């Protein structure tokens, strides 16, 4: 996920020595793990930033993307591209909400104001599932299919590098990260639970 140009410019302006961090995530068998969220919690609380918006689409009765990483306070919209209505809900403590049967994009986006894992479902389509992971830091990224996530514009400093994945078998300890150079790399090897597939029922 690339940062919008405005923020990128801002970051460049205030931290000339900012660098990028490459994090490789593999599972305990050495396979690349996609959709893992890695995030760096600065030891020193950075100045607040206004988070960017995000969107979780519904297309073919599926949430896209499956995993959305956002910073606390992000407003997320739920555009529905299907012709059927959806009833998006969450019973997760960080953000219980529901958007009752709607088409198109609901008028008001949902603001996620607490960090943590929020599981989304659709009340009329049991198989629909999406995860929103809310972090309280602007430095986060999501691994791609090759299991690599890149956190850009990471100012030099000390961080706790943490990882989350919806299938994590157990919480993983944070890695201490000292950013001094322009490029840095980190790696996680995490045990994963097997998640049963959730196929859509055949009409």
């Amino acid at each position, binding site marked *: 996920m690339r940062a919008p140009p405005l923020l990128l410019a801002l970051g460049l302006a205030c931290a000339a020595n900012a660098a990028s961090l490459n994090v490789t995530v593999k599972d305990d068998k050495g396979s690349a793990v996609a959709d893992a969220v890695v995030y760096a919690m600065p030891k020193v609380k950075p100045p607040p930033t206004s988070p960017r918006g995000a969107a979780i689409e519904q297309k073919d009765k599926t949430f896209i993307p499956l995993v959305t990483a956002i910073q606390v306070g992000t407003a997320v919209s739920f555009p529905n591209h299907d012709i059927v209505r959806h009833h998006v*809900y*969450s*019973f*997760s403590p960080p953000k*219980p909400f529901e958007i009752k049967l709607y088409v198109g994009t609901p008028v008001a986006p949902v603001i996620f104001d607490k960090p943590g894992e929020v*599981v989304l*479902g*659709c*009340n009329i389509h*049991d*198989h*629909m*599932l999406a995860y929103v992971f809310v972090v309280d830091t602007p430095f986060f990224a999501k691994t791609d299919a090759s299991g690599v996530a890149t956190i850009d514009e990471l100012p030099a400093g000390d961080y706790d590098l943490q990882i989350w994945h919806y299938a994590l078998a157990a919480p993983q300890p944070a890695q201490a990260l000292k950013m001094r150079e322009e490029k840095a790399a980190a790696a996680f090897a995490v045990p994963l639970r097997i998640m*049963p597939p*959730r196929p859509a029922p055949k009409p």
Partner: protein
Amino acid sequence: MFGRLQDRIVVFVAALLITVQVLSFFSIRYAVEVTSQNTMREELATGANVFKFMLDQNSQQLVEATSVLAYDYGFREAVATRDRETILSALTNHAARIKASGMGLIGLDGIVVADTLGPDTAGKAFAFPELITRASMLGRTSGIRVIRGKPFQVVVVPVLAPLPIAWVSISFVIDDSTAERLRRLTSSEISFIQRQSGTPQILATTLPKLRRRSLITGLPAILDEPESFKGASVKLPDDQYEILLQAVDDSGPVPMYALLQRSTNEGQLASLRIQTALYFILALSIAVTLVGAFRVARQITRPVSKLSAAVREIERGNYDVRTNLADRDEIGELSQAFDRMAQGLAERDRMRDVLGKVASNEVVTQLLDGRIELGGEERDVTVMFMDIRNFTGIAEELTPHQSLQMLNAFLTIVSEVIESHGGVVDKYLGDGAMALFGAPVTRPDDAQRALACALEIRTRIAALGPTLAERGLPHPQLGIGVNTSSVIAGNIGSPSRLNYTVLGDGVNLAARLEGLTRRYNVPIVIGESTRNLVREVICREIDKVRVRGRTTASRIFEPLGRREDLDALTIDRLGRWHEALEMFRTRCFDAAEAAMQDLAAVPEYSRIIELYLGYIRQLREKPPGPDWDAAFTLYDK
């Protein structure tokens, strides 16, 4: 014991058939019993399968229903409130929706959030953690568990939002009415049993109270060895049962069983009906067998009895009996053979009858036996010739028919007397007959028999005299000549027609002796050889004769009778006669003449003395030479 053939056949056939019937009866009855028991066991096993299937189906349906219930948005919202009271009332509400006995909510950590069955369990660990474990693996699960002494079907499903946020447990009681529903499907009595702290208990059952008590007494033995009771006969205090023990859920800490049972007696009602029918059939078939055996035996023995009766008839001499059995079997053949035999016997008897009239019995017997061949043998035979001397005189007074009747009457008497003394009438010779003693059958006392016979004939014929005299007929005069000599006896003639007789000089002599009776006026004349053989009969010596062509003369005698039959006077006269005869032979003719003239007045002696006085006259005129032997020469007849 079973002397009669008929009884033996009846006993044998009946015993054989009845044995077969009884054996097959018992095998069928055994097969019916075994089949009935097997059928019961199979039905019980089928019932057990149905039972298990129903239980699985039931649990599956409850799981499905519960899953739907747990997906209810309102319920999930209620769960999400984390408010215990709200959750409890939502659980009560939802349990009522599917008529569950109770419903509980358990956190993902295994701690009970709320439970309608036990409000006090909130905050405590869920009683059946193994169900949660299984539900996490399988998505949902179900098991039968005992809660406060009652069995429940406990279903555990997750609350999905859309990932599990909690577990719901729903309990459905298994009680007598559940068992009753299953009983209707399996047609077996069903009891849910479990050992609770060592004591077997019936958790739910379809059994009425009495049988329930009876089952409890048998339970410890059954539960001690659950593997041996997956289809077994068990005797309980009240009845015999086929039982089948089925584990309903062994995932819990204490295994629970369903016990399916059927009363053996009730199950065997159909087989009892078959057995009753079998008894009836057995009795009927034994009756039919007995009747059949009796009839078969009768069929066999009736002709046999008839045959044996016929044989007895033949034994009695009735050769005209016939069996006339037309059967085409062996007995029929026997009967026909018998009839042919009877016919043969009758013919042979007739033949013997006819032959007996024309030949002597002994000869006929030898003829019929096929022992007679042409040719002869030499043997000593006493031959008798007999003749009614004045028969012609008698016959002149009668018609020819009457005279034939008379002759036949004489000859009948003569034949009877001859045969009664063991003699054989060889042939009839006009008004006389020729008889043999010693041929064809030789006896040691043939001569005695012949003499006794001659004396009897003399007596019998003399006895006829008065009868004939009444009719004005003359007294019959008899002449009998008897001589014993070696003769040729045998069959003489051609093979197609032959005659058994004897040939020889002695035979001729006997005929001559018969002829001499007229000359000496005596009824009987016997030869010297016969007289020498029969010393016990007193004889009067008559003369000495020489057959022409022979040098030796032989003496001839008249038998008088046994000494005891003769009176003293007769004996005395006989002695005087023999003295006179001796004088004559020693040429003392004067003395002899005087002695003889003394006896001349006696009728028996008059004729003979007349003869001798004639001899003496001739001898005086022409004195004899020195070779005179006092014999009289017989010329040809």
